[in-house]
């Protein structure tokens, strides 16, 4: 009997640990948990996933411990009740049920604990608020947008760090909870600026973060058709992003990218403070950028509109989208009091992320490495750079690409379109592997003999070595494997 009990407890421990782990993987959300469970209910009941566990391990946070404790308590309660009411027979039945269905226990435990969790969250929030209150001189900058917010945040961080101590919310901490955590764990008295990236899963999210951090400068990088399932319409997306502008005080500064269609089409901007628009193509921009030039050394552009007249910036970062993000950061830096010399130096030290439109010269050949890009917008931006980059007379522009992956039904059409665009811009195309070979070749058919086929990246690289001469430019575009160098 005791032997059986021990086996039961051992099995229960294994099962419970797995179920908690999966609950954590699903962000403690019962709806997502259920979706996961449904996807293979038999295997998941038997905890088969333990045989090939996911890469992210279980983190034993205090919350996890609380859920485990309550789940165990519930389970023991059920077992003792069933023994009391139905003796050994019912006990055994209940034990088996517990093993198979303890996911329900986990969800129930989570539900029971939810007021506790809410109290804890509120305590952390108020603690963060208290910490911010003890820092009256701290200047908070909010950054939001459908895309470009992480890049803009990082660019601004680099520019401000030339002269100041700056705190920035790390990678994926763009929720209220993430911001609370950043404040409690990383904010120091010597920080002068705090850059907060604000993400929104639904309307009101950004307003909530702003209520906590009270930004005085806000940057809206773009409004586009992302997550339309949750938001419903572009107007709703815009309204949500503009919650940042709404939160700015009268002496604050709102900075918006007028090259973004979703922003430029707004009828009004709910900003009490100063509103500054920037853009390369927009005619209404307060800060107009122009003369964007690409060369093997990087990009240069001019920016006019501030109190320094026309300023010329140089940077290793390439691509119009990235340049727009830099401009947003530069405008913010100026509004924050960073003088022109420090802004220029900061911008010149920005680093292109490796394999994301990074540029280098090897043996006289200019290589544009966009191997990690994975979407058509990025590819279009890369082709734009390829087309415009300064090169000696007669230089060849060559594209090496496997096309796009994981686009589902859209893939063939997108690759064909990509092929057409390449034919307009490039002097040579090397198609890597078979996946999108047909679609790409169809679109780029007009290239005739300048269209090459390679089985894999190694063969493609060998072709480049044969074809490219010093002065030529080679673009490696899209989803090229990790070992790519």
């Amino acid at each position, binding site marked *: 009997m005791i032997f059986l009990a021990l086996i039961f407890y051992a099995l229960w421990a294994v099962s419970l640990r797995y179920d908690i782990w999966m609950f954590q993987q699903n962000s403690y959300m019962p709806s997502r948990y259920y979706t996961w469970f449904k996807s293979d209910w038999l295997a998941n009941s038997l905890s088969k996933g333990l045989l090939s566990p996911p890469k992210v391990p279980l983190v034993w946070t205090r919350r996890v411990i609380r859920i485990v404790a309550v789940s165990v308590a519930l389970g023991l309660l059920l077992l003792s009740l069933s023994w009391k009411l139905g003796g050994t027979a019912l006990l055994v039945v209940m034990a088996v049920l517990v093993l198979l269905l303890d996911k329900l226990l986990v969800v129930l435990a989570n539900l029971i604990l939810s007021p506790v969790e809410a109290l804890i969250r509120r305590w952390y929030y108020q603690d963060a608020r208290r*910490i911010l209150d*003890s*820092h009256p001189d701290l200047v908070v900058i909010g950054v939001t947008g459908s895309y470009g917010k992480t890049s803009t945040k990082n660019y601004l961080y*680099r520019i401000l*760090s030339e002269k100041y*101590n700056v705190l920035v919310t790390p990678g994926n901490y763009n929720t209220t909870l993430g911001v609370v955590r950043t404040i409690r764990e990383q*904010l*120091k*008295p*010597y920080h002068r600026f705090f850059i907060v990236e604000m993400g929104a899963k639904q309307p009101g999210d950004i307003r909530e973060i702003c209520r906590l951090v009270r930004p005085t400068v806000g940057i809206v990088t773009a409004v586009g058709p992302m997550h339309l399932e949750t938001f419903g319409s572009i107007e709703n997306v815009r309204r949500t992003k503009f919650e940042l502008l709404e939160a700015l005080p009268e002496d604050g500064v709102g900075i918006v990218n007028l090259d973004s269609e979703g922003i430029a089409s707004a009828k009004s901007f709910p900003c009490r403070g100063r509103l500054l628009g920037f853009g390369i193509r927009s005619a209404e921009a307060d800060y107009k950028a122009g003369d964007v030039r690409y060369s093997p050394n990087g990009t240069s552009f001019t920016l006019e509109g501030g109190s320094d007249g026309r300023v010329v910036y140089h940077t290793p970062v390439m691509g119009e989208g990235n340049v727009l993000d830099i401009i947003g950061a530069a405008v913010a830096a100026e509004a924050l009091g960073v003088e022109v010399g420090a802004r220029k130096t900061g911008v010149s*030290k920005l680093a292109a992320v*490796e394999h994301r439109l990074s540029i280098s010269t090897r043996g006289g050949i200019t290589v544009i490495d966009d191997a990690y890009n994975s979407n058509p917008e990025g590819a279009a931006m890369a082709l734009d750079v390829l087309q415009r980059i300064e090169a000696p007379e007669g230089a060849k522009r060559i594209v090496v690409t496997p096309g796009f992956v994981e686009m589902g039904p859209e893939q063939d059409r997108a690759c064909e379109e990509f092929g057409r665009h390449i034919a307009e811009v490039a002097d040579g195309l090397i198609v890597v592997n078979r996946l999108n070979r047909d679609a790409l070749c169809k679109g780029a058919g007009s290239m005739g003999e300048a269209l090459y086929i390679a089985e894999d990246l190694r063969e493609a690289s060998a072709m480049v070595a044969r074809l490219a001469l010093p002065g030529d430019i080679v673009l490696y575009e899209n989803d090229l494997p990790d070992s790519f*160098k």
Partner: protein
Amino acid sequence: MKTKVGLLFGGRSVENEISVVTAVQTSESLDADRYEVVPIYISKQGRWYTGDGLLKVENYRDLTRLLASSSEVYMKPLYGDYNLYLNGGGLFGDKVVATLDVILPTLHGTNCEDGTVQGVLASIGIPFVGCGVLASANGMDKITMKMILRGCGIPVVDYFWFNDKSWYADRDKVADALEKTLKYPVIVKPANSGSSVGIRPAHNREEFFEAAEYACTFTTRIIVERLITALKEVNCSVIGNYEECEASVCEVPQRSGEILTYEDKYKGGGKGAKSKGMRSTKRELPAKLADGETEYIQDLACRTFRALSCDGVARIDFMKDEDDRRIYVNEINTIPGSLSSYLWDAAGLPFDKAIDRLIDIALARSREESFKITDFGGNIFKDLGKGARMGKFSK
């Protein structure tokens, strides 16, 4: 929330006690609204302690008792771990006394100012005030300091140097080589001692033998310099970093004999002088110098500071040869006594503001280092099978 400053002092050097004085003075001037001071005392045996009693000079009269009532602590040399741990006693791992934000070393002398402690801090990655490893090591060694300054066109007095092994192997050979380079009188110094320890003048070969023998008991590297007989000493402090630095006013420290001795430096002055360290040394402040000499020295001081890539506050000691009126850089102290607060007071920079600046400089260096590339990622071992051999890469 205040910035937690680990005030690191004491050390395994002859200047352990002086360092206590510097530390106490510094802790009194740290703005209590912005900083929380955590004292960390390094005993002469090299053990680390913390405790409130460590910041009262009177308690050091009975060191054994003081240490017994303090707690032994340590830091782990692990990158990113800024915790100060209590040594021993914890059931599930040692308790954290404090998580520090920045270290302020006020240690003087060997094992303190020469990059050893700085190396530990740099390994941990915690921001710290003062020179980094390179500047500390070069600044501490009189030989390398002179080599670097000479290479930058900064005037230093003629010198000769040797290793104690050469000395013990063939004393006459070393003396002969010296005499080919320099004329007596000379001054013989251990290359890396602080506070004038082990230094002896030599007016002839016999005295040189004695002085060299004496110096070799302290160190392995010995420097011999031309002794300036009509000597005027002038000190000047510099605060800042490579990008921006400024010089203080100059002072002339007073001395009793031919050279400024340990006694002069720390035991001169009136009542209470013993506990006041460099502050109580008799001095002429500001230095009465000829026209243009102050500016010349201040400029040389900044150039020296930059040439050695210093950070924080340093004091550069100059020698003027009254006979030919030439001015030379004698040595640099990368963690000067009392952090040269008296020189900066005279220059109009009060000590508490100076400390603010020092901490800002430390944070700025840390920030700058965080943007420098130290790793290209990737793993050469992964590619090893594909034709790259250990030690030689295939084309």
